[in-house]
């Protein structure tokens, strides 16, 4: 909302610099987003108010005139080219040296006077553009008639216009008078009410029109007044200036008054041309099926029965609370005005304006909730102004349909509640001062305050609402900082989150960069990485109104996000890249929220860095991915088993399932080159997925511990021949499970060889086998004997033989 300080000053004195005013307002009332100073560059000596005394033709030019102006020190002649200059006007007048916006270049420059077509000019009568008020350079600016001749222009019409953002529950702050009331409460200055006096004619308004509310649930109050003898025309300069500064366009005196009063009080009003209201009656009712109305913006609106219409004897004349109809609009020929000031159900206004995609200044106010009593207040103010600026004669009385006036709410605020909520007491006198300044009625009864909020504050309904009024005006700077007391809640174990966060740290430690991707993706990307046979993951949830089409579907896999990140970074990274993300897969669930399945997904690939940070000849491969998983699981306290298994979008023969015991916990694989290619990745890229739910089930609370042995291990290196298709894990499984009189046997593979010296269909695996006893140093003889037993077992179980 635009808040011109000059307008605010009608109701409350403000003598704070703009920055301090903004701070005080922001602290207690509403957020000031910025302000504009009008007239900052107008020199008080050189730019002043003048009166045009006469306008005469220029002797040497048809399109120029000679204006005689009075700046308070006798008549001066100026050459003027504006078509609208006229005798009797108050104008802005500048003399040599004034800083003005150049009408042609648009730049701030110093005024230099020179003879124009042979006639000297004593100064310049200014347009809005030259004053920096607008781009209007067609004619001169006509000042309000009450500007004092000779006064510095900056005093006459200089201003500060604040841009204020108010709250969704405070329609009253969308009225400048309402705002002034808050400012008065904050600064302690007195508040001045706008003039609401007017004379009334003999005839009663009810002789002109009847009002029947047919939808009292949507229309809580409808007041109508009648103003005869309207002289249509432009509104006075002061009113136009204020409307413009507040961001509205002047239309004509009647419409301007309705807008002015709305900006002033927060209560929207609507003026009908009385002679166009058919049947001399007004019926607020729901629209009938198939009804339409062409609104003031010339758009034909389709109405539906949930919408409240203002109808006359024949049909709709306005969409209630949102916009009037063209069929009853005031115009140059209007003689009598029917002024509507009503109160509507906020939710209904909001629904209708959403449905019609029609937001207006009126609907913005109504939807926030306005007290019904504000209607008659605004009527009085508008009638006062219409009488002043449109020559109207108000008929006596209001036609006021107010089926069920709401009782004034009464709130009991125990004094102790203030301290209970805030942590500090507020002294009773201060409570009274604040509430009274805000327009509340306050009475004390015992240890409590009986508070009656004013009619413009329907948002205040509970004792804590009153507490907020108190503290914001009292000042949040007076609230101390204290420390929470009392018992701590019991800690809930969160094993999954613990594992997840540990894995996140480990992944980073293992050289993977964490990324965070948008969780909404496209169907195309999902279909590249999720098999259509996976019932959990197909049919992803879709956003009804995505921000962009590529962000329509909630991802059921993180693979696409990681591969996209990999591809995008490949444009500027030469060497190996490792990325991971911890997120959830949104798995649709029938008639319920999706299962958000937590997962770690990582991709890696590219050339390993050499000594000089240059990509070397060796690329990351499957075993880099597997090694990362082994280390990660190892630190978590489990050992994963890797089984060759095909996975969708992964390269067969280069793809493994990671499991722990009977639980499958993840995937390690090379991404299928075709799939990688679809993401514009033209190199081998590898993928890791680990799901935290199964992982959490198998991770021990603490790792197995055994003290380091006091006895040395014996190590034997063995080269074993096995059928080529036998996985190394088969050998290791046999060795791990081999038992030999309390001797622990462990083994690592340290080479795989096929080729010369090894028969076709076979491969040689080199194993480092370690033997250890907990109670003695093994003798050479022990070791040889155990080794023989192990070799026999390996041969029996999987046909492994010692390579000669």
């Amino acid at each position, binding site marked *: 909302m635009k808040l011109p300080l000059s307008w605010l000053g009608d109701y409350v004195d403000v003598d704070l610099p703009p920055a301090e005013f903004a701070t005080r307002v922001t602290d207690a009332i509403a957020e000031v987003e910025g302000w504009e100073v009008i007239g900052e560059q107008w020199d008080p000596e050189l730019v002043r108010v003048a009166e045009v005394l006469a306008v005469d033709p220029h002797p040497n030019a048809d399109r120029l005139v000679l204006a005689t102006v009075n700046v308070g020190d006798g008549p001066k002649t100026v050459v003027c080219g504006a078509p609208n200059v006229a005798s009797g006007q108050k104008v802005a007048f500048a003399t040599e040296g004034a800083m003005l916006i150049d009408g042609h270049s648009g730049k701030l420059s110093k005024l230099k006077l020179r003879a124009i077509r042979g006639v000297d000019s004593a100064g310049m009568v200014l347009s809005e553009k030259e004053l920096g008020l607008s781009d209007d350079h067609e004619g001169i600016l006509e000042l309000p008639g009450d500007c004092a001749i000779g006064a510095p222009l900056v005093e006459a019409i200089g201003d500060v216009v604040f841009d204020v953002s108010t709250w969704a529950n405070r329609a009253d702050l969308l009225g400048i008078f309402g705002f002034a009331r808050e400012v008065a409460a904050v600064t302690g200055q007195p508040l001045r009410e706008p003039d609401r006096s007017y004379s009334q004619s003999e005839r009663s308004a009810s002789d002109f029109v009847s009002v029947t509310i047919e939808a009292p649930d949507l229309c809580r109050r409808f007041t109508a007044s009648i103003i005869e003898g309207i002289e249509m025309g432009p509104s006075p300069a002061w009113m136009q200036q204020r409307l413009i500064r507040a961001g509205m366009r002047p239309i004509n005196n009647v419409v301007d008054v309705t807008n002015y009063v709305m900006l002033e009080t927060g209560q929207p009003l609507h003026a009908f041309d009385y002679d166009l209201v058919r049947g001399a009656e007004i019926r607020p009712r729901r629209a009938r099926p198939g009804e339409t109305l062409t609104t003031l913006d010339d758009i034909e609106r389709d109405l539906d029965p949930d919408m409240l219409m203002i109808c006359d004897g024949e049909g709709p004349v306005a969409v209630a609370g949102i916009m009037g109809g063209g069929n009853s609009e005031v115009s140059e020929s209007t003689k009598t005005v029917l002024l509507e000031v009503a109160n509507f159900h906020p939710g209904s206004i909001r629904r209708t304006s959403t449905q019609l995609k029609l937001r207006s200044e009126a609907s913005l106010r109504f939807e926030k909730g306005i007290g019904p009593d504000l209607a008659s207040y605004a009527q009085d103010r508008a009638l006062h102004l219409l009488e002043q600026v449109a020559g109207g004669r108000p008929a006596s009385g209001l036609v006021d349909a107010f089926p069920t006036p709401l009782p004034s709410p009464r709130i009991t605020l125990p004094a102790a509640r203030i301290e209970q909520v805030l942590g500090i007491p507020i002294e009773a006198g201060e409570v009274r001062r604040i509430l009274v300044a805000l327009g509340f009625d306050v009475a004390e009864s015992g240890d409590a305050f009986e508070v009656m909020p004013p009619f413009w504050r329907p948002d205040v309904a509970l004792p804590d609402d009153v507490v907020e009024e108190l503290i914001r005006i009292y000042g949040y700077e007076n609230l101390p900082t204290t420390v929470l*007391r*009392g018992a701590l809640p019991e800690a809930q174990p969160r094993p999954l989150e613990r594992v997840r966060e540990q894995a996140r740290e480990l992944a*980073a430690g293992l050289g993977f960069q*964490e990324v965070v991707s948008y969780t909404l993706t496209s169907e195309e990307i999902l279909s590249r990485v999720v098999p259509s046979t996976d019932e959990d993951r197909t049919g992803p949830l879709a956003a009804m109104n995505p921000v962009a089409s590529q*962000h329509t579907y909630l991802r059921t896999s993180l693979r696409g996000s990681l591969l996209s990140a990999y591809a995008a970074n490949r444009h*500027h990274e030469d060497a190996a890249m490792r990325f991971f993300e911890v997120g959830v897969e949104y798995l649709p669930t029938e008639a319920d*929220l999706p299962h958000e399945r937590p997962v770690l997904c990582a991709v890696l690939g590219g050339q390993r860095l050499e000594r000089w940070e240059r990509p070397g000849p060796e690329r990351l491969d499957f075993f880099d991915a597997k090694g990362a998983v082994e280390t990660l699981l190892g630190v978590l306290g489990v050992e994963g088993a890797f089984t060759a298994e095909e996975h969708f979008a992964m390269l067969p023969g280069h793809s493994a399932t990671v499991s722990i015991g009977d639980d499958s916990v993840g995937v390690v694989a090379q991404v299928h080159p075709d799939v990688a290619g679809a993401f514009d990745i033209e190199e081998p890229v590898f993928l890791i997925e680990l799901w935290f739910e199964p992982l959490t089930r198998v991770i021990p609370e603490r790792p197995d511990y055994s003290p380091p042995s006091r006895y040395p291990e014996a190590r034997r290196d063995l080269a074993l021949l096995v059928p080529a298709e036998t996985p190394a894990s088969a050998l290791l499984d046999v060795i791990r499970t081999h038992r030999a009189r309390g001797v622990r046997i462990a083994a690592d593979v340290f080479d795989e060889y096929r080729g010369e010296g090894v028969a076709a269909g076979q491969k040689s695996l080199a194993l480092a086998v370690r033997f250890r006893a907990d109670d003695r140093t093994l003798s050479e003889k022990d070791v040889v004997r155990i080794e023989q037993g192990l070799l026999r077992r390996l041969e029996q179980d999987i046909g492994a033989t010692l390579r000669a």
Partner: protein
Amino acid sequence: MLVTIFVPWLANGDRKPAAPSNPLAPQSRAAPCGRQTRKVKTPLALHRAFAFGDWLLSARLSRSPTYNFTQPMSTIEAEIDALRTEALEALTEADGEAGREAWRAEWLGRKDGRLTLRLRALKDAPPESRAALGKSLNELKATLEGELEARRDSARADALAALSADAALDVTLPGRPQSLGRLHPVTQTMNDCIDAFAEMGFRVFEGPEVEWSRYNFDAVRIPDDHPARDMWDTIWIDTLIEGERQMLLRTHTSPNQIRVMEQTEPPVRVIVPGKCYRQEATDASHEWMLTQIEGLAVDEGVRMSDLKGTLYAFARRLFGEDRRIIFHHSYFPFVEPGVEMAIDCFLCAEPGSDCRTCHDTGWIEVLGAGMVHPEILENAGYDSSRYTGFAFGVGIERVAMLRWGIEDIRHFYQNDLRFLRQF
């Protein structure tokens, strides 16, 4: 008195003592490697066992010296002088540590060093000359050992000097590349926020990102036709349940206030981290996916001053010990009173310096907060006359942007390594 000594000058055996070639290596006094090997029972022991046996065998084969003590003392002393001269000359010529080690073995070797053998033969000397002879031989031994030590020290000093001077490194050359990942700046900031609140006793709770409309809005007092809904432009899930669109991407973490209170009894002290979503156009300060942390404390005696104290501690922890905070009046339907918290701007040197962060107000809005609305407490089954609570919501990206001076929120989810690796 005449003492005749038959000196069987043993040829220096052909064993090759392991001479450390690196002057920086611990100086081995040529301890018999066989014994050492046997003591250290590593897997290596078994592999080396046979070689050790070889060596023992050769050691056993070495001859024991015999002595003739019939020569006169003066002759013996002359001989000792000659020995000294010979040994010291040999030491001068010994080349490198290998040469010194060979020299040591020849002269001072424990089994059959030339001086060692002589000392060992002392026991056969006549008692009357044994003391003098012993003194001379021991002096010689001390001289030789001292000289050897001095040589070694000097060689070691020379080598170190050469390493420091000739082999000095260009320390400005790049380090060997290591592979280390980093946590995303939002994760790092989130972790710091969680730590800050955890210190004050807040537990972590998590809730779903896809949320029921009734939790996201209705339960936190934002009914369908309330203009406050404009504060949260919503991405709806296009799935009808009982003919209605009921699911959405949560627009804030506040529905978890309800979820937490439904599940627990006071005292409540939780923070809820997580992603939120807004249907809005993006620009340098708006992103449609964002990360929040929600805080909620409910108990008897929770006061707004506690909220201020809690947020003050948080602000100082995240933005520096000298931070100040202020509350502005604000409106959120689920709190009463409602405030926004701002911290004093630590980015602009002085007011009027066109600070793009605080716009010269000196204050930076950081989060929204307030006292939990009594209706929300009542809906959760809490007695709002007895229990009070506060709640707050922090935008993590905003905190991260302030901490690091990041100018555009859209960097966070582009996953560009050039951005990510700076944190």
